[in-house]
């Protein structure tokens, strides 16, 4: 069960003023992810709540496997009553943990240390009522039909918003874009993950083996669509479905997800052409610009392969290692010799800036 952590008031208020402090309720922050009347449209970056951050035990320095999760509730003029609490799968679904008022502000908060790599559901309890978090846009419907709020911690590689087939299809598309499924790239990637396992690196890196797409770009995109760029989920829902339909139309008797990469290459290339009818089987009334979706996909794929692994992609820092060790020496257009002792960290020593166990920096704690 996750433990309650004391976090000082300045920390909480630092996150609140920008998002929650305002005079008007204009729906300035709705890019299509909310219904017109949703009050979250007037909150800047409501996806930041609950706040997911690093955790460290100040007494013994432990805690790299945990995240600090801070729940914030707005209780202006005690509209929610004088007691607000939280129940959730990370602590107890029965016994609520109280939030505390932050100084004399309108904000009530409580922080927990929750393991990395997890997904949880929760609700607030106030005035005898149980309700989802009014600010966090992540919602999930439980098997009993009830609606709960959701959060996930860092290094989560579960698929949260994409269905299984959507995730597989997205993996095929991002595989086409990224350089890791070329013959050379695939060989390098296999070698890298094998070497990770052999050195007995931290358990989280072995997650790579469980993903069908080791670099995890699709996993990153799923997390991005679940939280920071929720407004783009609809683009993926529609376009992945249209891609599936197009592939079915082209090769009627086969599962699109098992088609060879040449079909995905052909699909990608046709999607750059926005003329209606350019892609046989694409329903332009549902999504008029496949090209726009490709632009989105390119940005997301790039970011997923090379962003910090805590965001769900670049698993085991493989993307960064690829940059370090799989780029050529421009003088020879060949890979530098492996045993070149002058540059043991290759062309990108990402580990020297980051904290253990991911990196080897002695000062920075993450």
């Amino acid at each position, binding site marked *: 069960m996750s433990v309650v952590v004391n976090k000082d008031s300045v920390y909480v*208020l*630092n*996150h*609140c*003023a*920008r998002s929650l*402090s305002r*005079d*008007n309720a204009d*729906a*300035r*922050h709705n*890019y299509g992810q909310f219904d017109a009347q949703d009050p979250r449209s007037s909150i*800047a970056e409501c996806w930041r709540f609950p706040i997911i*951050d*690093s955790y*460290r035990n*100040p007494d013994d*320095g432990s805690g790299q496997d945990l995240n600090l999760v801070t729940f914030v509730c707005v209780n*202006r003029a005690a509209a929610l009553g004088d007691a607000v609490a939280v129940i959730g799968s990370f602590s107890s679904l029965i016994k609520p943990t109280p939030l505390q008022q932050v100084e004399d502000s*309108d904000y009530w908060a409580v922080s927990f240390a929750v393991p990395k790599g997890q997904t949880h559901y929760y609700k607030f309890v106030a005035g005898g009522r149980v309700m989802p978090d009014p600010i966090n846009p992540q919602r999930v419907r439980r098997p009993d039909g009830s609606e709960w709020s959701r959060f996930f911690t860092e290094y989560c590689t579960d698929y949260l918003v994409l269905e299984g087939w959507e995730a597989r299809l997205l993996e095929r598309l991002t595989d*086409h*874009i*990224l*350089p890791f*499924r*070329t013959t050379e*790239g695939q060989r390098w990637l296999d070698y890298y993950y094998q070497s990770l396992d052999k050195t007995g690196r931290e358990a989280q890196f072995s997650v790579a083996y469980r993903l069908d797409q080791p670099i995890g770009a699709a996993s990153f995109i799923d997390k*991005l669509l679940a939280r*920071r760029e929720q407004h783009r989920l609809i683009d993926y829902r529609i376009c992945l479905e249209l891609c599936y339909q197009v592939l079915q139309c082209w090769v009627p008797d086969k599962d699109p997800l098992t088609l060879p990469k040449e079909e995905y290459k052909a699909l*990608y290339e046709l999607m750059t052409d926005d003329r209606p009818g350019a892609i046989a089987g694409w329903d332009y009334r549902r999504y008029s610009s496949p090209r726009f979706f*490709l*632009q989105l996909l*390119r*940005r997301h794929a*790039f*970011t997923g392969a*090379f*962003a*910090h692994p*805590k965001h769900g992609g670049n698993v085991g820092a493989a*993307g*960064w290692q690829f940059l370090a060790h*799989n*780029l*050529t*020496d*421009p003088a020879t257009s060949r890979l530098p010799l492996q045993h070149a002792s002058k540059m043991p960290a*290759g*062309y*990108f*020593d*990402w580990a*020297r*800036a*980051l904290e253990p166990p991911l990196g*080897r920096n*002695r000062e920075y*704690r*993450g």
Partner: protein
Amino acid sequence: MASAAEFDIVIIGSGGGGAPIAHTLVGAGKSVLVIEKGPLFRTQSDDPMGLSDYKRDELISDGPEKVLTVPGLTNTGASFYTSHIEPDLNDEPHVYRDADGGDYATIEGYTCQCVGGGTQHYGGVSLRFAPLDFKLRSFNEGRRDLRQEVSADVVAEMRDWPLDYGAMEPWYCKAEKLVGINGTRQNQLKPASEDNYQTPLDPNPISKFAFDGMTALKMAPYRTPQAVITQDHAPSGRKVGAFADPNFVGGPKTGYVNRYGDPLDYKSSAWIALLRPIFHEPNLTLWPNTVVTHLEADGPKVTKLHLRDASGRGSTVSGKVVIVACSAIESVRLLMLSGESDPAFAQRLNGNGLLGRYFLTHCFGGASTIMPGRHDKSVTIDSDWATDFCASEKFIRDNGLWAGGAIYNNTSDQALPISLGRTHGATDLDTLWHAFNNDFGAVGDKFLDFLNTQFGRRLSVSFMANQLPQRDNRIELHDRVRDKWGRRVAYIIKRWHAHDEYLMMTLAAKCRDILAFGGDGGQGKYPVEGYGGVFMSENSLARIANHILGGARFGTNPADSVLDINCRAWNFDNLYVTDGAFMPTSGGANPTLTIQANAFRVGDHLATSGLV
């Protein structure tokens, strides 16, 4: 939070213009309140848990996509990307009028809402202005070797600063000492009575091309002064790690410097260097997460500041002296908003119509190209070599220019992979990701080709130069768009003069020459992909920067300036403006050190003025 409490000094803004004043006056025993709109983000050593609010994570700086929803703008519906300490444009846009007369929202590069302001985010380049920068009117009046577009009426718009370089010099020394800056003095055209620099660290290997180019062209180089400490810094009580030891993995060269707050104590932000050391003094009060909505005055005396706290609750506070230092556009805006509901205030402040006028940025641009070899650009601060060649009087006269600027190389640009993707082919913060997203052919093997061509290979050399002051370049209040508090937002109208464009091309050509000569061992034939100035937008491969200055210039004549020589609003007893808004010309260098030096100067004046 107290209501209507009385402080000796109330300072609005905790960045380069406000923190030095707080530092000086707290030391002089005065009661000082610093109000900061943004959060107090902490380094590891400030934090009770020992973790910083700043992270080495590209997605902190390169935030998620948002969409502009402010209605009725030219770029309504456009994507934008902010970090967590830049304002959300939909809540607090700055609106610019573009060349076609349409209004569009944008982000300046270094506006930063947090304790320490822009100094948390910047790369730390801490150049002095040149002596000539202080007297550009005297220098240019009657000149016969000026280009023709710098006609007499253009010269008539220039102003000397009310004090010269020599008068500012002691405060440059003070700022350099107290902030904590590394660099080298030799070959600078800016004389210094003290050398307070710390020793620079080894340059990134890619910078050798810039050094070689400068040397081949006899553009005497010096190590770029940057606000990053490399040795223990006694004035701020900071100690550096043992990174001289080859087994120690640490130090400031991480690549996460420009556009990132530092989780450690290396970057000399205004918080780390100037405010944190005095944070526990009983006479300093700091209110982060608090916005000042407007000022209230009674005749020549500012009597109250109206505030909203982190919950949005309103209150007021007063001080014997009020300092406005929340970055030029926001400071001018705050003063205009205060005048909106109080015509007497507006008249007193802006009777001569100069508030908001002579808004300035910098002539900025440079050259960039792929160099021989591949280098780990992440082992860097932000810049290694600079030259004042284009700040010399000879260069200025030889080229018919009105003023000059500094040149320096950049190392951290595109050092990290996401920054490569998003800035590839981008010319400003409004064209991020564009080139990569549309390079549809870069997939698989071709994506690898892209990485092989671009990663760890690009070197850019930039210039930072004076921009011509023009009366019609100005800050106003937008008539329609309002922020999340219902206040009118800033509206910036600005155009480049033809001479600005000529100056930028001239200096950009020098940057190109540095790369052309540096890349092939001094022959001058190395191919340079692109060079130009910010005015060129789509055609330029210039790096991104934008400094906001002017709008409340200081001077000796109340009919011709907004502030007096001590940055006091002429017709007020107790109102001062000490961010970059005070500058009548923008200087031939990054402005932060000059803003800090001037703020120290004003602080010393206030300490002995008898006002408090």
